[in-house]
């Protein structure tokens, strides 16, 4: 039996169905539950126990929805007749909840066919099932969403690799899609395809103005929503969300980096094209004019410290996007990428006393065994090891680094871009 509050009923029911147990009882209590006092919890339990007993004894309603069981082979996308007018089409997209809110390109069979020419993979090949709805991401259905987002056929293999990456268990797409936290998958592209496709790694690479960055991130969002079933307010439970949920994609500025590029660090060949996805909880500008490497690293590290961070709560994998200028300062100071990670990890330790009481109890539970117990004097590392600080070099001229905190309960996943 599952217990949840009224705000999570839609998610709970959809999950039970997707996981193949649609008749498992769901006991529902009024939202919000987590903020109630001890006495209020007790009062609620006094009556709620009768509902729990009633459901345990089989008095709940059974699901009468016809089971639509997956057959292993993805179903072909249905053809739908719709007004041949861009405004009317987009009104219909809004009504059907196909949209991220911005106008879409109609995925006509001809456009989808042209998109599919961008890959050698079979139209009906299953790429992944995407939580929390566990919809089937076939090559065809990914291509349909790519058309709608404005992608070009040559961008489709990058999108397919990104879909494979987010579906990897280590990424925890289930948690990322359904959480109240503001999490967006950040796509980082490395290797020769980044330049071929014109994916911006330089000035304003995380901002507007580059088509490839805009449409790749957008297409992944449409896949997560339309195939993964994470519709805002239903299974996407984000309290605020964040602008990166529209699009969050860049390439690494490999030419301006003094170190090995990300994909080589992660075990791929320099001549391979690779997509890495990160469960990003936002971006924060770290502006420092320091020309002293040790001084700069210290300033960056202490800027990452905040006791409301999921990375500290759960031993996460935070990221820094160093501008070429900041990377150059560090390189001139004699720091390797591993040295940078080590110093950041050491100097971003946070006194556990910074926590609010409830959060202190939570971190004691979540990280107590990792750290051999946590007291108010404990210095909490932001992640389990220096290796799990992510570093990329990107952006244009300027003395900025972008701190990308994460959902915490996620790890970056890389996939080679296939044909």
């Amino acid at each position, binding site marked *: 039996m599952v217990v949840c509050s009224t705000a999570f009923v839609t998610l709970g029911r959809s999950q039970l169905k997707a996981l193949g147990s649609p008749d498992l*009882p769901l006991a529902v209590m009024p939202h919000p539950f987590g903020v109630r006092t001890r006495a209020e919890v007790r009062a609620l339990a006094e009556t709620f126990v009768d509902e729990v007993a009633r459901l345990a004894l089989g008095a709940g309603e059974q699901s009468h929805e016809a089971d639509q069981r997956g057959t292993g082979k993805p179903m072909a996308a249905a053809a739908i007749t719709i007004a041949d007018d861009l405004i009317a089409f987009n009104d219909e997209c809004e009504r059907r909840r196909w949209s991220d809110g911005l106008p879409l390109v109609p995925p006509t069979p001809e456009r989808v066919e042209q998109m599919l020419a961008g890959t050698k993979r079979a139209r009906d090949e299953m790429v992944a099932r995407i939580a929390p709805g566990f919809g089937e991401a076939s090559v065809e259905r990914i291509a349909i969403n790519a058309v709608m987002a404005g992608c070009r056929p040559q961008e489709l293999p990058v999108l397919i690799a990104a879909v494979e990456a987010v579906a990897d268990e280590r990424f925890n797409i289930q948690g990322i899609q359904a959480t109240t936290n503001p999490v967006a998958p950040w796509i980082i592209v490395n290797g020769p395809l980044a330049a071929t496709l014109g994916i911006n790694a330089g000035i304003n690479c995380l901002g507007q103005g580059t088509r490839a960055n805009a449409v790749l991130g957008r297409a992944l969002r449409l896949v997560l929503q339309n195939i993964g079933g994470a519709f805002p307010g239903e299974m996407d439970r984000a309290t605020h969300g964040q602008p990166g949920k529209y699009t969050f994609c860049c390439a690494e500025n490999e030419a301006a980096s003094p170190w090995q590029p990300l994909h080589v660090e992660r075990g791929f060949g320099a001549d391979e094209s690779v997509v890495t996805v990160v469960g990003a909880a936002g971006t924060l500008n770290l502006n420092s004019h320091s020309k002293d490497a040790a001084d700069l690293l210290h300033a960056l590290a202490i800027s990452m410290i905040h006791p409301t961070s999921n990375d500290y709560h759960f031993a996460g994998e935070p990221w820094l996007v160093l501008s070429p200028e900041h990377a150059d300062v560090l390189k001139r100071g004699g720091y390797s990428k591993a040295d940078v990670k080590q110093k950041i990890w050491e100097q971003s330790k946070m006194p556990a006393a910074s926590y609010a009481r409830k959060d202190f109890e939570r971190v004691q539970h979540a990280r107590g065994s990792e750290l051999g117990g946590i007291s108010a004097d404990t210095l909490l590392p932001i992640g389990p090891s220096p290796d799990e600080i992510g570093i990329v070099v990107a952006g244009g001229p300027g003395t900025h680094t972008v701190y990308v905190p994460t959902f915490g309960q996620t790890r970056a996943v890389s996939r080679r871009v296939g044909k």
Partner: protein
Amino acid sequence: MSKMQTVLDPVAPATTAAGGPAFRPLTTLQGKVVGFIDNSKPNFSLLADDLGELLMSKYGVARVVRHRKRTASMSASAEVFADVKKQCDLVITGSGD
């Protein structure tokens, strides 16, 4: 009537995974073992304390087995599943807040 066009549906139909556990209602709670898998969200442990106690005093449940996930958004461990499967007649877990 305005001109029409055909488009392909971008939405994946919701499918039900095969092989999920089926719910078998109990005929009584008397003498049964109830397991709680705490999802680590605020107040669930207090609710489990109270529900466990009330299920025993009011409904004759024999005993309660407690587990807690490390964090809400990760699955419980295989050991937890094995343990509740072995010991419990009914398992209650939390979802969301």
